[in-house]
């Protein structure tokens, strides 16, 4: 009925009616996608009640007895959980310090190239590893840096000491960061490059005419222009800080042992899905999710305080 004829909207303006059936068609189009989100996100979200229960396979999710905050209390007294948290935070911080600047630097390098064929070729090559699965990336690293890999082959031929990288718990953290850089630093340049191309050429020109050299132009024109993007990416990274490459860790956990490679996500996996302690594992996962959401919220607030746009208004 509302779709027929002329009607007034809330502010009293006349609005031309949409053709008959318009609203219905859009709702119909929405349905499959909406159903997916309702079932597999909100339905699954409900499943988090298991964090407050003791899972009994025979009774299922809804029949299992409530234990209140018992799972969370257990978690706080569990040294293995805290080891996983510590590992997670360590790896996340290392990635923040060593990975985060690489795409930015690479983007600046690519943007400074005046020959577009060279730039496009390097871009194409650098984006590629992003599309390679973690299984293959880990296998590639084994093949190049492993005991019988290429690097040790060359070192051995040259009569030098071979290096123990793959499967060495002490080398695990740098290795993990190196893998992330190899896989995603190239792809990470896209967003910076987009920001760089949007800088007004005239600003550079004006700065150059005023006598600013390359460094001062970089400092006073380039950096301010890409600052919002950097802040945005930092905030998003912060929300994700407790997820440090679940697949990457799981694939290599056997080789180096849980001491080095257990992170919160693998902890949840081994306690819950492998160990069957669903309630306890879900409690740990829920904590992680809540802290992640909280971090995004706080970081966004801080960004607003500093006069940045942030992720959402």
């Amino acid at each position, binding site marked *: 009925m509302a779709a027929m004829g002329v009607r007034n909207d809330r502010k009293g303006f006349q609005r031309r009616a949409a053709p008959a059936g318009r609203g219905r*068609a859009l709702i119909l*189009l929405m349905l499959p996608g909406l159903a*997916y989100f309702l079932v597999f996100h909100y339905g699954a979200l409900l*499943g988090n009640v298991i964090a407050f229960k003791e899972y009994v396979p025979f009774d299922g999710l809804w029949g299992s007895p409530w234990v209140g905050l018992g799972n969370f209390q257990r978690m706080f007294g569990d040294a293995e959980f805290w080891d996983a948290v510590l590992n997670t935070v360590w790896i996340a911080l290392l990635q923040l310090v060593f990975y985060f600047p690489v795409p930015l630097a690479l983007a600046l390098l690519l943007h400074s190239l005046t020959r577009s064929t060279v730039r496009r070729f390097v871009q194409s090559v650098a984006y590629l590893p992003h599309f390679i699965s973690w299984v293959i990336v880990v296998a590639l690293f084994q093949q190049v840096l492993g005991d019988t890999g290429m690097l040790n082959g060359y070192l051995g031929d040259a009569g030098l000491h071979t290096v123990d990288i793959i499967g060495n718990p002490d080398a695990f953290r740098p290795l993990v960061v190196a893998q992330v850089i190899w896989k995603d630093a*190239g792809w990470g340049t896209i967003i910076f490059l987009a920001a760089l191309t949007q800088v007004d050429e005239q600003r550079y020109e004006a700065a150059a005419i005023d006598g600013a050299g390359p460094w001062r132009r970089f400092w006073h024109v380039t950096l301010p222009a890409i600052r919002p993007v950097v802040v945005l990416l930092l905030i998003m990274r912060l929300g994700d800080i407790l997820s440090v490459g679940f697949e990457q860790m799981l694939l290599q956990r056997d080789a180096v042992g849980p001491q080095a490679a257990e992170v919160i996500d693998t902890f949840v996996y081994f306690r819950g899905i492998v160990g069957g302690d669903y309630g306890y594992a879900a409690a740990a996962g829920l904590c992680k999710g809540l802290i992640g959401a909280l971090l995004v919220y706080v970081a966004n607030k801080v960004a607003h305080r500093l006069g940045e746009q942030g992720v959402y208004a």
Partner: protein
Amino acid sequence: MSAQAYRPGWMEKPKPVTQAGKAVALTAVVLLVCVPFLVIVSTSLASQREVVANGGWVLWPEHPTLKAYRDILDGGIVTHALGVSAGVTFVGTLLSLACTVTLAYALSRPGATGGRPVLLLVLFTFLFPPGMIPNFLLVKELGLLDSYGSLVLPVLVNVFNLVVLRGFFQGIPEELYEAARLDGAGDLRVLWSIVLPLSKAALAVVGLFYAVAYWNSWFYASLYLESDHWPLQQVLRTYVVAGSGLTDQTLGDGTVNAPQTVQMAVLVIATVPILAVYPFLQKYFTKGVLTGAVKS
């Protein structure tokens, strides 16, 4: 843009040192990406004897042979897994694209009934994903265990892809919608005849993202499927990365461990489809398809 070097008039000519430094850095980037691929392809093409003599890898095979590929494609686990991966990728990508396009289109039209709350509902899942255990229990309760549906349905629509497509649809000039509507086209007709033909670049990129995600996925398979239904990446993980024997069912020659050449051949087969579609699609990445989403 031409292949000619373009340098604005105000920019100084770089010093030779700077240029040499850039050249070194760029070469390093290209080599770091390409050499590992060269090593696996070369090793897969070498004879097992050559690989053993060189200590486990080959940079350039002396006598290239396709024996490793013939061995693994001769029926058996890898051949089957290849079929599973191809099937899941094809069906999954089609279903995902269909559901993402329709939802993105509905959410991109101003004044769609319920558009605002649905959009918020969708975006919230980005901030707070349900978690591994609830997902697992849901798949179990829905009876999807050990079915290929468990690889597709739980990851059917990706929020990032949805936002990319929605941003792209919103960028289509409103006049086109108006004109189509005056000609009597309904929303479905507008989507099919106006929006989709204009969105080929965005569809290609999003389609590639879905296809790559399905092709590369192994964790859900390890979680939900029995080993005789595994896709290629999970087979690769079990036999190459974790180093369990591959040979019994595949090669039938009774050796305990798969020769290095065979392992590398599996690795190459798992990589080739990505390398094959990549050149056709990578040109779209720079066309601003993704940057539209960044701003919205």
